[in-house]
C-alpha cells in the first residue's frame, strides 16, 4: 500500500466547543491513517444531525445522505464498488440509528463489508436536546414524558442480526484502537462511540456528567456478504417462436373468455389457444384475472384473436364464453348476453341456449379448460385443431394435454352420433 496521506483536512471542527464529536472524527481519521488507507480508498457516508457535518473534515470521497438512511446508502456503495481495497465508513448519530434501524439490521444480516460508526450523544443535538431511542432511562429528571421504555441496544441487535463485529465503548476508552479493530474486520462492523453533548446534555441533564455507558463487544464468524454477478441470456431468445403454418378462417376479430377455478389450467389453456392462433396466422392477446391469493377462487382469462393487428386489449362483449367450474361461472355470468356463445360444463349450469358438455369428465380438473377450448376450435372451425396439438407438443405435460384435446374431440363425435 502507498504511503498514507492525511485523511483529515485543515478545516475547523464545526461542532460546539467541547463536543465529543471532534474526538470521534479525529479518531476515525487516525485509525484509517494507521491502517495505511489513502484518501481515495475511503468513502465516508454521512447522515443528518450534528454527526452529518463531517464531510468537509475528510480528504476522502464523501456522500452526504438522509436522516437514518446512511447505513443503507453505505450498503449500496459497498456492493456497487465491489472492491475490497476500498473502505466504506458510515457515520451517524443515535437519532439516525433509530430512524433507520432496519437498515442497520439488514447490513448486519448480509454482513456487508463496511464499518458503521454510531456517535451516540444520548440525545437529539441539532433539534434542541430531546431524548432519543438510544438515550438512557437514567436521565429521569430530564425525560419529558412518562416514557420509561428501555433504550435500544444497537450493538446487540447488530450482533443478533449477524454483524461480524459490534462494540460499544464509553468515553474513557481509546477510540482509535477500537476503530482500527473494527475497520480491519472483513464484514459488517458497528462501533457505538459515546460523545457528550456540551450544548444540551451537559447543561440540562445533571446526571450526564457522571454517566458512563456499559461497554459491550460481540463477534460473529461469518462470510462477507457480496452481490453475485452472472452472465445471462436475452429474454427475447427465451420466448417460443410461433411461425404460422396453418390457416384461419377468421376475417375480423373475436373475443373469448375462459372461466374456471384456481389451479384448473385456465391461464395456460388461454395461452395455448392464443399460441395456436398465432400458428394459424392470427394476432392474439391474452390476459388473466384472479384473486390476489392465486391458489383459491376463480381464474378468468380473456383472449382476443384477430386477422388484423390488435390495439385495444379490453373485452367488453365477449363473443364466446367457456365456463368449466362454479367459481368461474359466478365471476363471468353477468358478461353473457343474447349474442354470446356459451360453452359450459354439465355440472355448472344448464340452459338450452348453452352448449353444455362434460369438459371436466373428459379433461380432468386440470384439463377441463383446454377441453373446452378444443371443443370450441373444432365446433367453430376457426383454425385446425392440429395447431393446438402443435402447441402442446413440447410441453412436459404433453400426454395429459393431448388427452384433454382428444377428449373434446370425443365429445364432438357424440354430437355427430346424436345428429345421426
Amino acid at each position, binding site marked *: 500500500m502507498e504511503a498514507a496521506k492525511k485523511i483529515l483536512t485543515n478545516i475547523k471542527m464545526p461542532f460546539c466547543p467541547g463536543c465529543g464529536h471532534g474526538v470521534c472524527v479525529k479518531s476515525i481519521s487516525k485509525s484509517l491513517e494507521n491502517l495505511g488507507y489513502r484518501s481515495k480508498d475511503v468513502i465516508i457516508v454521512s447522515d443528518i444531525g450534528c454527526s452529518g457535518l463531517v*464531510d468537509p473534515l475528510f480528504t476522502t470521497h464523501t456522500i452526504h*445522505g438522509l436522516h437514518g438512511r446512511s447505513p*443503507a*446508502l453505505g*450498503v449500496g456503495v459497498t456492493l456497487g464498488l465491489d472492491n475490497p481495497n476500498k473502505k466504506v465508513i458510515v457515520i451517524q448519530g443515535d437519532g439516525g440509528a433509530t430512524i433507520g434501524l432496519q437498515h442497520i439490521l439488514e447490513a448486519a444480516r448480509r454482513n456487508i463489508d463496511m464499518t458503521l460508526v454510531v456517535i451516540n450523544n444520548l440525545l437529539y443535538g441539532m433539534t434542541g436536546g430531546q431524548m432519543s431511542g438510544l438515550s438512557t432511562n437514567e436521565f429521569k429528571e430530564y425525560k419529558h414524558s412518562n416514557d420509561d421504555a428501555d433504550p435500544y441496544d444497537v450493538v446487540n441487535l447488530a450482533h443478533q442480526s449477524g454483524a461480524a463485529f459490534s462494540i460499544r465503548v464509553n468515553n474513557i476508552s481509546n477510540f482509535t484502537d477500537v476503530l482500527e479493530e473494527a475497520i480491519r474486520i472483513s464484514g459488517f462492523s458497528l462501533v457505538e462511540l459515546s460523545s457528550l453533548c456540551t450544548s444540551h446534555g451537559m447543561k440540562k441533564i445533571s446526571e450526564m456528567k457522571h454517566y458512563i455507558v456499559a461497554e459491550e463487544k460481540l463477534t460473529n464468524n461469518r462470510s462477507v456478504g457480496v452481490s453475485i454477478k452472472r452472465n445471462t441470456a*436475452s429474454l427475447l431468445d427465451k420466448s*417460443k417462436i410461433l411461425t*404460422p403454418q396453418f390457416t384461419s378462417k377468421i376475417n375480423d376479430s373475436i373475443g373469448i373468455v375462459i372461466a374456471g377455478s384456481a389451479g384448473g389450467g385456465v391461464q395456460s389453456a388461454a395461452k395455448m389457444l392464443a399460441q395456436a392462433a398465432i400458428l394459424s396466422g392470427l394476432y392474439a392477446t391474452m390476459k388473466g384475472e384472479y384473486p390476489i391469493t392465486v391458489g383459491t377462487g376463480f381464474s378468468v382469462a380473456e383472449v382476443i384473436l384477430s386477422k388484423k393487428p390488435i390495439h385495444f*386489449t*379490453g373485452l367488453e362483449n365477449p363473443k364466446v364464453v367457456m365456463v368449466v367450474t362454479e367459481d368461474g361461472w359466478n365471476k363471468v355470468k353477468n358478461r353473457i348476453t343474447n349474442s354470446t356463445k356459451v360453452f359450459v360444463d354439465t355440472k355448472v349450469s344448464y340452459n338450452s341456449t348453452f352448449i353444455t358438455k362434460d369438459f371436466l369428465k373428459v379433461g380432468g380438473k386440470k384439463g377441463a379448460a383446454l377441453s373446452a377450448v378444443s371443443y370450441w376450435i373444432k365446433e367453430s372451425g376457426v383454425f385446425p385443431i392440429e395447431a393446438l396439438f402443435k402447441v402442446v407438443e413440447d410441453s412436459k405435460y404433453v400426454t395429459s394435454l393431448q388427452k384433454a384435446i382428444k377428449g373434446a374431440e370425443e365429445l364432438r363425435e357424440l354430437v355427430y352420433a346424436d345428429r345421426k
Partner: protein
Amino acid sequence: MNTKSSKNVMIDASRIITEALVQSGADVFIGYPITPSNLFYSYSKERFPEFLAGPDEISVLQWMCGYSAAGKIPVTATAFPGLALMTETLNMAYMMELPMVLIITQRLGPSTGSATTGAQGDLKFLDGIISGGFPLPIFSPSNFNDAWTLSNKAVKTAIEFRTPVIILTSKELVMTQRSFNINLLEPLEQINRTPKVVEPPYKPYKAGKDRVPTFYPLGNNEYQTRFNASTHDNDGLIRKGTPESLANTWRLREKLEERINEYSFFELDADDGADDLIVTWGVSADASRDAINLLRKNGKKVSLLIVKTILPISQNIFNIIDSFKTVTFAEENMTGLYKEMIFGKRKNSKVKVATKFGSMLTPSEIEEIVN
C-alpha cells in the same frame, strides 16, 4: 400481417422493457415485489447481470443510490405504495444527480386500492414529487415498440442528464400478453458512459455549458468526489443560501428544461384539415388508436397526439394542442390528470375529457366524447 419471415412470440411489455434496459447498459436490478410490477421483478432476476432483493422500498432506493454513486446504473420497479416510500430518497437521488431508472406500474388507488386493476392515476403525484416543483423526466410507453425504445432513452437520459428517470406504465400495458414480431425491434443505441475530460481541479458539481457536471464515481483513483443531498456548492459541500449553492440548485431545473427537446418524445397522427385532436398517453393510447379509426371510418377528420415524454411538458406539445379547435383528452383516471397539467381544473369550451375509473377506457367511449 404475420408472415413466415416474422419472429412471432407471445410476450408482455414487462419482458420487453427489462430486456431493453439490460441491452442499454443497466447494471443491476434492486427490487421489492409489488403487484402489478411483479413481472419486472421475476424477469430481472433472470436477466440482469446483478439482482438484489431489498427488505423494503426505502432500502431499495438507498441501495440504488449507492450503486449509482459507485458508477453503476440501477433499476427498480414498483407501484404507488412503493413509490410513496421511495419519495424521500428519490429527492435525494435527484439532488445528488444520480442516474437510475424507476419503473412505476400504475394501479387503482387511493392507498393500496385495487392491486390488480390498472389506472393512470399517479401523474399529478409525480409532477410534484421533487420538492420545489423541479422537473423529473417521465417516459410513458404506449405500446411494445415504445416499451423497447423508451427504455433505451430512459437509460440514455439518466446518464446524459445525471438524473433519475421514471418509466410510467400501467397494469394492462405490462401484464397483457400479445403476439408480437420481435424482428420489428430495432437494435438499441449503445450509450457512452466514459466521463468527459475535465480540467483539474475537479469539482463534482461544477457544470459546463450543457449544465450537467462530469460524473466521477465514489472510490475512483483520479479525483476526490463528493455527493450531497443538502443544498451544496460546486465542491459538493453543504452551503446554505450562497449564490453558488443556490445557482447549483437552480441548475437542476435548467439542465432538464433547456435541453428538453433532446428527450421529449411524442407521436402525431395528423389528419389534414382536422379541427379535432385526441391527446392521450400510456395505456389509453391503444384505445385512442382504435377510436381514431372508428371516427375516420365515419368521415370525421381528427388527429391523434400520443405523448410519450409525459413530463416535463415541452413547448412542442403546447404548440400542437394550440393548433386545434377542440381537444379531447383520453385517460384512465377520474378527471383527466394530463388535461389538468395543460389546462388546469377550470372548465374550458375547447377541452373535453374521455375518462374512466376502475376499468379500461374503450374506443367507443372516446369516439362518443369526440363526436
